[in-house]
């Protein structure tokens, strides 16, 4: 379907436009063809208008007339660096993600110190221990779903420890996370039992989905309100306590609304992104045993494993954040209108051949590697140092304990696309001899 065209000819332009019309990040078959499409768009239509695409984004596209897709590194990075034109205020009730500078800067000043190397290094032994507890349990079997048994519980447990969320409430939080993050996916709403009517493509109806999301948000807020009250009375050594004790601009406490909007985001960020990235990395290493061997060779060398993790994050890049255009703005000859949505594709930017040599290859010692996997500019991932540590430790321990895994015969990894990519299941077998 996607072949090379001459953009100088009218049929070339038409083909480029027709590719952009197929750009539907939520489509079931999208993961198989995404990089082929991205490569084409980077070449022929770096700023393209999305028609069918990003249905999930439609949820937040209140009043937006058009949605645009940025495919090249340079453009994606530019937008991340210019929040005054490409605003994060797209209607998500999240702090600090859905806020622009200068307010955003103040929130980040409060939160940045919670996730620095100095704070996280002492946690490392506990993280490693927990990875092994999960592996002990999983490896009692010869066949297992790595996503369910490792990729999902691993980051959640660590996040709960850091944040001070009670472990016995994990199932509740998982459920909310699933509703928020996966409720809009075809088939998934049904699996989650959300009772949302779907269209012929199996996608949940927007209005009904909004209702379900609003209800889940209320439940989550009610739950968090209790935790916040507890920490006000009985402070502890955790992020919840630090949140209630925080001073905005050094003067006032955060309001209940601010606290809830922050916790809401932390739960989504802490519960889903490492799961997705780790899952996709493991899919890659399952399908490329030669790369797996290479990884195992280098994984105990601190400098080499550090750069290998960066490369795997570049290669798997899971997020395509949206921004709202703040004013009519001509960008690269395209007239963007105030209120338009722009999708900034880190999966595409991180494979941009203008910046990365052999972008579709995993080169563990790639340098330089200024990838956008954690996003750049003011909204770069707050938890990235934690995420890197989790990924490194998880991959080291998995490969120490079970270097010879294979895909269970007859199985395919359950990779899904969207604004945040991930893997539903990865069924593996070990000890086949």
């Amino acid at each position: 379907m996607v072949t090379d065209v001459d953009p100088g000819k009218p049929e070339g332009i038409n083909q480029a436009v027709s590719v952009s019309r197929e750009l539907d990040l939520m489509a079931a078959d999208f993961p198989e063809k995404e990089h082929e499409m991205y490569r084409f768009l980077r070449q022929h239509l770096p700023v393209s208008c999305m028609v069918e695409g990003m249905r999930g984004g439609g949820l937040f596209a209140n009043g937006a007339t058009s949605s645009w897709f940025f495919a090249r590194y340079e453009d994606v990075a530019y937008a991340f660096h210019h929040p005054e034109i490409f605003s994060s205020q797209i209607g998500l009730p999240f702090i600090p993600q859905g806020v622009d500078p200068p307010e955003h800067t103040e929130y980040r000043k409060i939160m940045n110190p919670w996730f620095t190397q100095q704070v996280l290094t002492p946690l490392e032994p506990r993280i490693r221990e927990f990875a092994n507890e999960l592996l002990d349990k999983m490896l009692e079997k010869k066949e297992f779903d790595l996503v369910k048994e490792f990729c999902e519980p691993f980051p959640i447990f660590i996040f709960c420890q850091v944040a001070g969320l009670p472990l016995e409430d994990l199932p509740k939080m998982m459920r909310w996370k699933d509703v928020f993050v996966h409720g809009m996916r075809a088939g998934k709403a049904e699996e989650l039992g959300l009772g949302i009517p779907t269209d012929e493509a199996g996608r949940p109806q927007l209005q009904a989905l909004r209702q379900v999301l609003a209800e889940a948000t209320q439940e989550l807020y009610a739950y968090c309100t209790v935790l916040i009250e507890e920490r006000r009375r009985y402070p502890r050594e955790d992020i919840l306590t630090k949140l209630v004790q925080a001073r905005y601009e050094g003067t006032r406490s955060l309001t209940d609304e601010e606290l809830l909007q922050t916790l809401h985001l932390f739960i989504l960020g802490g519960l889903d992104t490492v799961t997705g990235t780790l899952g996709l990395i493991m899919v890659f290493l399952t399908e490329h045993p030669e790369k797996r061997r290479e990884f195992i060779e280098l994984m105990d060398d601190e400098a080499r494993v550090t750069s290998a993790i960066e490369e795997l994050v570049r290669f798997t890049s899971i997020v395509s954040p949206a921004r709202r255009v703040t004013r009519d703005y001509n960008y690269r000859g395209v007239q963007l209108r105030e209120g338009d949505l722009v999708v900034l594709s880190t999966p595409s930017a991180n494979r941009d051949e203008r910046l990365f040599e052999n972008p579709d290859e995993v080169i563990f010692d790639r340098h330089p590697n200024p990838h956008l996997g954690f996003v750049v500019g003011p909204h770069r991932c707050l938890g990235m140092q934690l995420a890197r540590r989790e990924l490194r430790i998880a991959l080291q321990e998995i490969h120490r304990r079970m270097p010879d895994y294979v895909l269970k015969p007859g199985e395919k990894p359950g990779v899904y696309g969207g604004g945040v990519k991930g893997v539903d299941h990865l069924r593996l077998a070990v000890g086949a001899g």
Partner: protein
Amino acid sequence: MKVRVDREKCEGHNRCYMACPEVYKVDEQGYAFVDEEEIPGALKEQARRGAEACPENAITVID
């Protein structure tokens, strides 16, 4: 050789620190700084790699 960290541009990726912790330090906000701009011979190459690793182009190398 000197290196200079533009604190306005730094967003706390820590990639300079990961490449060359001997030169690049991280403050309590997670942002990079250097104690000594002048880089000793033995660390030159590593310091340069640290600068090149920055996705914000926040580090300048002055030869």
